[in-house]
């Protein structure tokens, strides 16, 4: 079962995303801030990480760059979900290594499609490497 980590300080987003993704058959963990997220990444292997940008302790950009430097996070797919829509924030996210960007308010169906697409791509890349 593929594992997803959601890093967001908004309890509604955490809960709803978790329910939607569990229904789709993924194992989902939740971190309420960047620090907690990085601790979970240290301990577990995640195929995909969904992170917000504005969070206490560490913002989304710091998290993405730390994930990309982390041996366990190097190959994980990253989706940013944020209400921040300025072009420079989006490009900075991609430059740091994010794979996709979803603007809040989120559409459930769109999220599921993007998650599936990224995980398919990850699986395909892993198969090539194997």
């Amino acid at each position, binding site marked *: 079962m593929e594992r997803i980590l959601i890093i967001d300080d*908004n309890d*509604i*987003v955490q*809960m*709803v995303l978790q*329910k*939607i993704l569990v*229904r789709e058959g993924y194992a989902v963990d939740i971190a309420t801030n960047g620090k907690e997220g990085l601790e979970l990444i240290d301990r577990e292997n995640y195929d995909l990480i969904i992170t917000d940008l504005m969070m206490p302790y560490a913002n989304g950009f710091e998290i993405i760059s730390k994930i990309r430097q982390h041996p366990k996070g190097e190959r994980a797919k990253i989706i940013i979900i944020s209400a921040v*829509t300025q072009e420079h924030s989006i490009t900075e996210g991609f430059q740091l290594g994010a794979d996709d960007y979803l603007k*809040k*308010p*989120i*559409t*459930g*169906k*769109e999220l599921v499609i993007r998650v599936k697409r990224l995980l398919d791509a990850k699986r395909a890349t892993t198969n090539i490497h194997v």
Partner: protein
Amino acid sequence: MFKDFTSYLQDNNVLTALYYYFLDLPLVIEVACVFILVALSATLLAYGSILVRRYRGYRQDKKETDLLPVIDQLLTEHVVLNEGLADNVPIDDIELPIEKFRTKTLRNPANRQLLIDRIVNYKKSFAGSIGDLLRRLYLELELDKVSFRKMKSVKWNRKVQGMIELTDMDMSISDVNILPLTNSKNRELRAEARNAYIKLSKNEPFKFFDVVTEPLLMWDQIELFKTITTTEEIAIPKFARWVTYSPNKSIVSFCLKLIVHYNQQDAAHAVIKLLDNKDHNLRADAINCLGKLRCEEAEPHLVEIYYSQPLNCQLEILKAIGRMDTGNQIQFLRHEFLHSSDFDIRKNAAKSLIKTRATPKSLVDELIETGTAENKLILRHCMNPLIKF
């Protein structure tokens, strides 16, 4: 000498004895006693009120802790994870078990408010079909009526709360209800009404610019700017209209910023006319706008009026020349840099000189070689590419 208190007790009860004892005290002590009594009562009242409020808050928190999971369960089960959403059933045809949200507990006004808050928060986080189904739930539970009732409240904070709920749930509010509030004496209320008006009015979201008499404060402008630039499908008008006709200076100033943001080049003529305005702050804003629009045709006029302007306008003219980058005013900038006694003028003249691509390198070298120590420092500062202009 004071009489002993016990002597008053001989023929009277305690209260009467106290009263006579008090009457026999010197005036200064009587006044002091009254003050002490008032201060003690006020302190006790304040403590009492704090305790009552805290207890109420504690009970409300406890209630929320118990009720929120129930509301969340209902919303996720019947709205977010509704089977109809997955099967692409049209929103109006999706089976929504409304009766499950009409429990006795959720009919209680405080709990109903909790449900409204939660629906609004869900709607803020989720768009698309989930958002539409949340809106349908809000309407079918007739919670919109609760929000509209709040708008009719005499308390400004209730009005604001109602307005925010209606705006977040994409409900339309009639102009009759909202336009007067855009001019309210209460700062928070009028700011929220303006935001709501822009978000909700699809055809003429800026109509309130015509009726606003209160000034748009700087913070209001920031909030409005954010609302205007982030609201989708908003009809952007030609802001030159208000630059020309609005008697409200803050509206004109705000429209100048919007003209720059939306790069409305055709507004340049209206902005140039503002250069004759008596208010020097407005003239400075207009010059800033012309510079950012890179309105080259205004440059000769700006140089012409330069010496008759106050310092803030002069600085804006120097900045505008740098932004326009025509290369026609190099000598003017050089003159200001060399001969002005004002530090800010020399700094902005230098910045514009460096920014003007047509400025010969030899001129900059010459200015560095022959300049005073301070001028050399200004030039080197302006040549640093890390310092943005």
